[in-house]
């Protein structure tokens, strides 16, 4: 399975990171590039439960391909979500089912963000994405 172009870019930049400051700054930059979520999507029903910050996630299957959009009031989780969308947007339903998302973050050098004690919400976002992909399958 070939990687989406955004994912290739993410891998290249995060795998060459030397310091935690660089990594954090890049996360913030990725978060800033996240397209704004429409106000009508920023509703309780799209809020991901289990985050220290507010994270909204919506996803739609269009012509057999997933398009997710998200927003957060915090910058780091915004960056993590942007990296997630870079990997999954455009995938088919079957591809999304098959993908190992924790492994994606491991490749980016961000596996610690998924440790069970983390309450930043990335785990909750992944869970929500799995639920969305099941209900529209």
């Amino acid at each position, binding site marked *: 399975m070939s990687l989406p172009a955004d994912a290739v870019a993410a891998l290249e930049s995060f795998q060459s990171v030397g310091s935690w400051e660089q990594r*954090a700054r890049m996360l913030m930059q990725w978060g800033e590039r996240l397209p704004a979520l429409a106000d009508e999507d920023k509703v309780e029903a799209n809020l991901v439960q289990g985050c*220290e910050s507010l994270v909204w996630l919506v996803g739609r299957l269009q012509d057999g391909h997933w398009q997710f959009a998200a927003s957060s009031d915090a910058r*780091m989780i915004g960056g993590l979500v942007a990296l997630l969308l870079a990997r999954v947007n455009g995938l088919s339903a079957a591809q999304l089912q098959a993908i190992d998302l924790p492994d994606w973050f491991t490749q980016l050098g961000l596996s610690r963000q998924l440790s069970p004690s983390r309450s930043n919400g990335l785990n909750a976002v992944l869970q929500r994405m799995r639920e969305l992909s099941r209900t529209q399958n």
Partner: protein
Amino acid sequence: MPLASRAFGCGSLIRVLNPMLVPSPWRADFPAIATLQRQDQTYLDNAATTQKPQALLDAISHYYANGAANVHRAQHLPGAHATQAFEDSRSKVAQWLNAGDSGQIIFTHGATSALNLLAYGLEHLFNAGDEIVISALEHHANLLPWQQLAKRRALTLVVLPLGDDGVIDLQAAAELIGPRTRVLAVSQLSNVLGAWQPLGALLAMAKAHGALTVVDGAQGIVHGRHDVQVLGCDFYVFSSHKLYGPDGVGVLYGRNEALHHLRHWQFGGEMVQQADYHSASFRPAPLGFEAGTPPIASVIGLGASLDYLSSLDQPAVFAHEAALHDYLLHGLTARKGVRVLGSPQVALASFVVEGVHNADLAHLLTEQGIAVRAGHHCAMPLLKAMHLTGAIRVSLALYNDSDDLERFFEALDQALDMLR
């Protein structure tokens, strides 16, 4: 140069000369601190749980290496030894609280389970419309058991408001504590605001109306010596692991007169006196409230931690904690945009930074090896009432020193530089 300073590179030279330097003479008694330091971790989440003294590790190791046995049931020698050590710990806890003959020490599985024991064991005293009084700053452990009891019995849960300083408003309390009040359950020291609560006045109000009084001492027990006979509360609750003891143990002190009201809650094991297939009778406190095998090693470990704490120069410990707390508050208030919640008096400070999300700040502090707590601190309603989604909490222990705080401040400055 002191060891503790040498470990932290060039900046420490300046700090050694700094008259504000606050070293901890007890740091080396806690082996985990050195280990954490080797992992570049600065532990400032002590209100959540504390590191353990070597004396505790030795006691638990000694117990398991010399023969574990169940307590209060076996006639054999290992059973007698274990029971003796277990009961010695009970006496040490009683001494720590100066309980004397006034009441009993019951071991539970934590402060939360002690408060649940009270909320179930006292349930029979309540009639629909009766009132339970708590405060706005309660930890979930001293909120949810009472909230759920109120739901079960159609009671009213009355919440005492706070002043701006994070202290329960006594004027409001005088109006809210009344003839329908059956129980007053309040925290001694807030785990978010770090403010001592006016227990003397509150307990007097409750007693004037014949209400039972419950004090959640989970934080308070760590930062002061408290005499339950002077306090005059009916029940006092704390957890071992916050007081440099093992986890899995909570303590419930009950005054003799109040314990008569407490019904048995959990059943099984040696809490029984006589058992038939269809009926049973149960032991009085304390054993009647210690169903099943208790956390024997942990109870023995708590005794060792109390022995260790008793061996320290208590005024020196409290002076050290006060100096560190000053250091923390000065550093926080000196930073632009930092807002400290309430007026913390001891042990901890929670804060937010204008224009910065606490989750982002927590992320960057974690990246720099600073172990502090971010979020709602198990006091969601309090944070909501302050219109905050969360806050960062720095909480201190006797082994912390000013180098720990300097590392925290450096990391905070670095994080804020990046975020603003």
